């Protein structure tokens, strides 16, 4: 049992042979991947770009072989890391921002909105119901107004205000504080949109409350202006940006409903898969709704200040509404309309 220092062959193991045969490929792949990670895929020359998938598959097959034939753990660990890094660069990276935006506006967003048409209808009905209830409540007892609309939001437009004051809020020229107010409203509304999406997670109950409350406030304001004979003007004042803004809020509510119902009633899919599917569609709709709210903010901040004619306001609001409806629901060629992701 002595360990004689005999002249034997060197005990070359598989790992050594394997390393010697493929080391150059791995090194090259590692250099390429490191360069992409540091900068972007654009730094690669055409040759490198063509070599990248080949090198990646070489490394992958090396990994498979190493796992089966080699016991060198450092080698297997290294190949796992290298393949994972290369995999993320080849498969996991999102496309360029410009391209993503293009696809978003031409395909994914309208497709996602179309996919949510049921929820959108429910959300619309909830808003309308809220508005009717709010209107009736404030008409029956003006005290309800302060219960529904906070002091800050009302800004003097309450049931006790005179016709002149109310008319002033509709047609008055304001200083540029209003652009700040419009920016504030945009961020505020966008935050509401995000909440009504995210709160859908709680089986859509808080989302339903938010959407109904939005309708209630609208109804309460209507109940202030309509009895004073300013209903037509108020509707125009709302319509110029409201068709866009309310549509956006309704859509983000619909996104919340989709999530809540997908989690509560997953149907044939597993609850997790159903949630993921709904989450992606809902988030796309909600992200688009924020863009709509930005448009609404511009209409509110600029359009409403320069356009004081009722009919012109109605026209702009109507054009916007028809524009959105056509953009979302106009049937497209099948090639475009599929990917709702």
């Amino acid at each position, binding site marked *: 049992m002595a360990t004689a220092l005999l002249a034997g062959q060197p005990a070359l193991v598989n790992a050594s042979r394997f390393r010697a045969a493929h080391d150059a490929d791995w090194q090259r792949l590692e250099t390429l991947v490191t360069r992409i990670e540091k900068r972007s895929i654009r730094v690669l020359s055409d040759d490198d770009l063509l070599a990248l998938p080949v090198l990646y598959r070489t490394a992958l097959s090396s990994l498979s072989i190493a796992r089966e034939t080699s016991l060198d753990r450092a080698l297997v660990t290294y190949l796992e890391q290298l393949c994972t890094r290369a995999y*993320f660069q080849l498969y996991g990276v999102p496309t360029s921002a410009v391209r993503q935006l293009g696809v978003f506006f031409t395909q994914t967003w309208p497709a996602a909105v179309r996919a949510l048409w049921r929820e959108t209808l429910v959300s619309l009905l909830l808003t309308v119901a809220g508005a009717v209830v709010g209107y009736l409540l404030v008409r029956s007892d003006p005290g309800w107004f302060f219960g529904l609309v906070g002091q800050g939001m009302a800004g003097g437009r309450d049931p006790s205000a005179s016709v002149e004051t109310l008319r002033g809020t509709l047609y008055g020229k304001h200083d540029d504080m209003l652009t700040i107010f419009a920016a504030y409203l945009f961020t505020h509304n966008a935050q509401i949109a995000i909440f009504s*999406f995210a709160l859908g997670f709680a089986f859509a109950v808080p989302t339903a409350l938010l959407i109904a409350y939005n309708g209630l406030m609208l109804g309460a304001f209507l109940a202030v202006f309509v009895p004073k004979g300013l209903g037509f003007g108020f509707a125009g004042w709302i319509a110029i940006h409201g068709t866009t803004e309310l549509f956006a809020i309704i859509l983000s509510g619909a996104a919340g409903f989709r999530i809540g119902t997908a989690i509560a009633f997953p149907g044939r899919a597993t609850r997790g898969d159903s949630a993921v599917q709904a989450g992606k569609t809902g988030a796309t709709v909600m992200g688009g709704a924020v863009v709509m709210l930005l448009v609404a903010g511009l209409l509110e901040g600029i359009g409403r200040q320069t356009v004081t004619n009722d009919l012109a306001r109605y026209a702009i609001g109507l054009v916007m509404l028809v524009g959105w409806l056509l953009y979302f629901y106009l049937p497209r060629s099948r090639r475009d309309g599929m990917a709702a992701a």
Partner: protein
Amino acid sequence: MAWLRRNARKAPLSLRRSFVTPEGVDLRIELGSAGERAAAFVIDVLAILVVLIGATIAIAYLAWSSRQSAFAVLWLLGFFVLRNGWFALFELSGSGATPGKRLVGLRVVARDGARLTGGAVIARNAMREIELFLPLSFLGSQAAHGWADGAMTLFALGWSGIFLFFPLFNRDRLRVGDLLAGTWVVHTVRGKLGSDLVVPVERDRRVFSEAALGLYGVYELQMLEEVLRSGTDEAIVTVAATIRRKAGLPDDRDDRGFLTDYYAALCGRLERGLLVGRRRADKFA
């Protein structure tokens, strides 16, 4: 001896997950732990605060010197983008990670291995609003108005707590946002290839008997590899002594050389076993 102690069967719940590429190879990716995720988040929040404070001072100065209300609009929009866009925009960029995640060595990937879509990134970050910002801002506004009573504070903290600790209650360390977006957060490790332990040597290698090589299996071999790669001299002496004692070999005063040769011989023997389909997992097999 510690390095031979068998704990493979009782290994703690691992964060390694099977992740099969379209080519059919399992990459065995490693998920980010809850601690790392929290660290990355804290770094991001600090970065956001620094940017916010810096931008606020700059904008306040510009607004004060020019008396233009446009700067207030700029600040409002900037705040909105910073609050909602920081995470989403960085994660949508090529690296799939915010600066905090990048520093800690994490990235967001889709659980199904597909591309990370904009919808998924928006979804996972919009949920952060209700996970954290909603209860905090609620609490903040309550406190500002002096209404923050015990029950409300408790509710806000409890709400945050449920979402905050959500990653600890599931196997894959998913946030609610991850759950909904179909993403998870994985380690990005950049390791160098460890050197070959069985390089050809000038001297003759020691030759071991079958009985001496039959002592150990793959698990022990890889522990030996770890000791050879990164072990201290003390560990090498201990391990060499143990092997010599078990195999009944005399001490030849060259522990590292002995272990290298033993590693090469054992590795060769176990690899020959692999060729005929015998994988000896450990010394008990």
